[in-house]
C-alpha cells in the first residue's frame, strides 16, 4: 500500500517535471541564450571585423586561449552609459512616454472591457474576436495605415475639412500626438483582454447586494468592481508598459525626428556607429531597469496576497 503511494507520487513528480520542462526549455532557448549572447557582446570592444567586435569567444582556442580572451572583456561600455547624459535622457524620456501612453490606454480600454463584460452573453465571443481581429494584419501595415489617416492630405483632415470643422489641415503626423495615437491603437488589445477576463468573472451578486443595500451605482463601481478588476488592470499595464518603453517602429514612422526614445538611441549605436558592444550594453541596462522594479513589485504583490488569505 505504502509502496504504491510512493510510486504514484514519483510518477506525479516526474509528470510535473515534464510539464515544467517544456516552458523551461522554451525560456532557455528563446530568452536566456540570446540574453547571455547580448550580455557577452556588451563586455567586448568594437572592431572592424566579422563579427564587428572583439574578442570573439569560442572553444577553438582551447581553455588557455579562452581565458586569455576573457581578460580582454571590459566594462567600458557601461561606464560610457553612466558618463554620457544622452543615454539617461533617452531612458527617462522613454519611461515618460510609456507611462503617459499606459494611462491613455487604461482610460480607453477600461470602458471597452467593461462594456464587453456586461454585454449579453451570446455577443461576448464576437466582441472578443473583434478585439483580436487586427492581429490578423501585420502590425507594420497597420501603423503605415495611420500615416494615410493622419497626414495633411490624409483621411482625417479631408473629412474634417469637408465637414467644415477646420479650414487648415491639422498637423498631427510627425508630432508626439501621432506617436500616442499609434501606441494607444497598437497596444489597446493587450489591455482590453486581461481586463475583460477579470471583469467577466466578476460575481454579479455582489453588485446586486450593494444595490439592495442602497449603494448608488457609481459607488458600487469604485468599491466593488474596480478593486476586483485590479489584477487584470495590473497585468494589462505590464503588458503594455514594458514593450512601449522599448518601442521603436511607431515613433520612427509616425513621430517627428525630435521624439527621443531609447530604442532609437540603440539603433544609432548599432547601425550608424556600428558599435554592437555599446548597443548591447544599452539593451542590457534597459532590461535591468524594467525587470528589477517589476520583480520587486510582483514579490510584494504576492506577499500581500498571502497575508490577506
Amino acid at each position: 500500500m505504502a509502496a504504491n503511494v510512493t510510486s504514484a507520487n514519483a510518477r506525479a513528480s516526474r509528470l510535473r517535471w515534464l510539464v515544467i520542462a517544456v516552458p523551461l526549455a522554451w525560456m532557455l532557448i528563446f530568452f536566456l541564450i540570446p540574453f547571455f549572447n547580448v550580455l557577452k557582446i556588451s563586455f567586448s570592444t568594437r572592431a572592424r571585423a566579422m563579427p564587428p567586435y572583439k574578442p570573439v569567444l569560442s572553444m577553438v582556442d582551447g581553455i588557455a586561449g579562452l581565458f586569455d580572451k576573457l581578460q580582454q572583456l571590459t566594462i567600458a561600455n557601461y561606464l560610457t552609459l553612466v558618463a554620457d547624459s544622452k543615454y539617461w535622457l533617452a531612458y527617462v524620456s522613454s519611461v515618460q512616454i510609456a507611462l503617459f501612453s499606459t494611462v491613455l490606454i487604461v482610460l480607453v480600454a477600461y470602458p471597452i472591457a467593461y462594456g464587453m463584460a456586461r454585454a449579453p452573453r451570446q455577443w461576448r465571443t464576437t466582441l472578443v474576436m473583434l478585439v483580436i481581429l487586427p492581429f490578423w494584419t501585420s502590425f507594420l501595415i497597420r501603423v503605415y495605415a495611420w500615416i494615410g489617416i493622419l497626414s495633411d492630405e490624409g483621411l482625417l483632415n479631408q473629412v474634417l475639412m469637408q465637414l467644415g470643422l477646420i479650414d487648415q489641415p491639422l498637423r498631427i503626423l510627425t508630432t508626439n500626438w501621432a506617436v500616442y495615437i499609434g501606441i494607444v491603437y497598437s497596444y489597446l488589445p493587450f489591455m482590453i483582454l486581461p481586463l475583460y477576463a477579470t471583469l467577466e468573472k466578476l460575481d454579479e451578486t455582489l453588485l446586486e447586494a450593494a444595490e439592495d443595500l442602497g449603494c448608488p451605482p457609481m459607488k458600487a463601481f469604485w468599491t466593488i468592481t474596480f478593486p476586483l478588476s485590479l489584477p487584470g488592470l495590473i497585468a494589462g499595464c505590464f503588458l503594455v508598459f514594458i514593450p512601449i518603453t522599448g518601442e521603436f517602429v511607431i515613433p520612427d514612422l509616425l513621430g517627428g525626428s525630435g521624439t527621443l526614445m531609447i530604442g532609437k538611441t540603440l539603433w544609432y549605436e548599432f547601425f550608424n556607429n556600428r558599435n554592437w558592444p555599446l548597443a548591447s550594453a544599452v539593451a542590457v541596462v534597459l532590461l535591468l531597469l524594467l525587470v528589477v522594479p517589476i520583480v520587486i513589485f510582483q514579490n510584494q504583490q504576492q506577499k500581500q496576497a498571502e497575508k490577506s488569505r
Partner: protein
Amino acid sequence: MKKFSGRTMLAAVIVAGGAASAAAADKEVHVYNWSNYIDDSILADFTKATGIKVVYDVYDSMETLEAKMFTGRSGYDVVVPTDRNMQVLIEAGAFQKLDKSKIPNLQYAWPDIYKRLATYDPGNEYAVNYMWGTTGLGYDKAKIDARMPDAPVNSMDMIFKPEVAAKFADCGIYMLNSPEDVMPAALNYLGLPPDSKSKEDLQKATDLLLKIRPYVRKFDSSLINPLATGEACVAFGFSGDILQARDTAKSGVEIVYSIPKEGALLWMDSMVIPKDAPNPEAALAFINYIQTPEVIAKATNFVKYPNGNLESQKYVDPAILKDPTIYPPADTMAHLYTTTPNSDEIQDAMTALWQQVLAGK
C-alpha cells in the same frame, strides 16, 4: 539608395526561380539586392542564357545587408552594398576578390565611375558598379510656385538659407535621416570640404543645420512617400527616391528633381561576392551577364538610375540618357563629390552631433 531605415522588417522577400534541390545547387545563384532595383525579365533571361537559376531576395535598408554580412554565412553569392558601407565591409573581410578574367564585360566600364569607386575599393579589386546616382533636391512645383515664384530651386539655399526655408515650413521640408549624406551637403554649402573629418568643421555644419531645424518637418529614411503624398514640398534625398515619387504622385502633382548647383554627393551601389559565397562561379557569371551593355541598359531603363557601363549608353532610352537629372552633363559631373568612411571616433562624433540636430538643441 536608402541607407537608413527603421523599416527593415518590411523587406519583402521575392524568390524568383524555384525550390532548391541538392543536385541543382551548383546551378543556382543567390542574389541579394535593393528592392525595386531590377527589371525581373533580366533574371529570367539570365537563366535562359546560362541554365543557372536565380534565387533573388531583396532588402530595403543598408543595415539589413550590413548585419547579415557582419555575421557571415548569409548564403548569398552576390550582394549590392553602397559605397561607404561597402568599404567598411571590405575592411572587415566580408568579400572576396574578383577573378576579372571571368568578367570580360568589364571592358565596358566607365572610367570616371570606376575611378570614384576606387575611393572605396582601392584598385577596383572587389566591386563591379551596378547603379549610381546623386543626392539632391526634390520639390512639388505647384506648392513652391505658390509660396515663392522666384525660389532658388537649383540651389541648397532652398533648405540651408533660413529665410527661404521658412517659406516652405508649412508645406513640409523633409531631409534624409542620414548624417553621412546631410553633413557633407552642409559642409559643401559652407565652402568647407564635404569629406571633412575635422570636428570643428562638423560643428559648423551642425550649427547651420540647427539654424534651419525649426523649418524641417522630419528627417526620414525614405522620401518617396512624403513627396508623393503631399507631406513634403521640399525634400533632400536620393535622386532615385525623388524620381520614384515623381512617378507615383497623383495626377496633377508635378515633382521635380534638381541637382544643386553647389554640387552633390555621388553614391554608387556595386555588386560584390561574399567571402563565403556558396557558388562564386555562378556569381561571376551573373555579374558578367548584368554588365552586358544591352542588359544593364534595360535595367537602367527600368529603375531610371545611371549605370557604370559606358557602352550601355547606346541602348539606354534617349529620354533617360538626355535627362540631366539622371545622366548629369559633364560640367555638373565635375561638381559631384564622394565621401569616405569615418574613423570610429569621427563617426561617434558625427552621430552625436546628428542627434543634437534631430532634437533641435
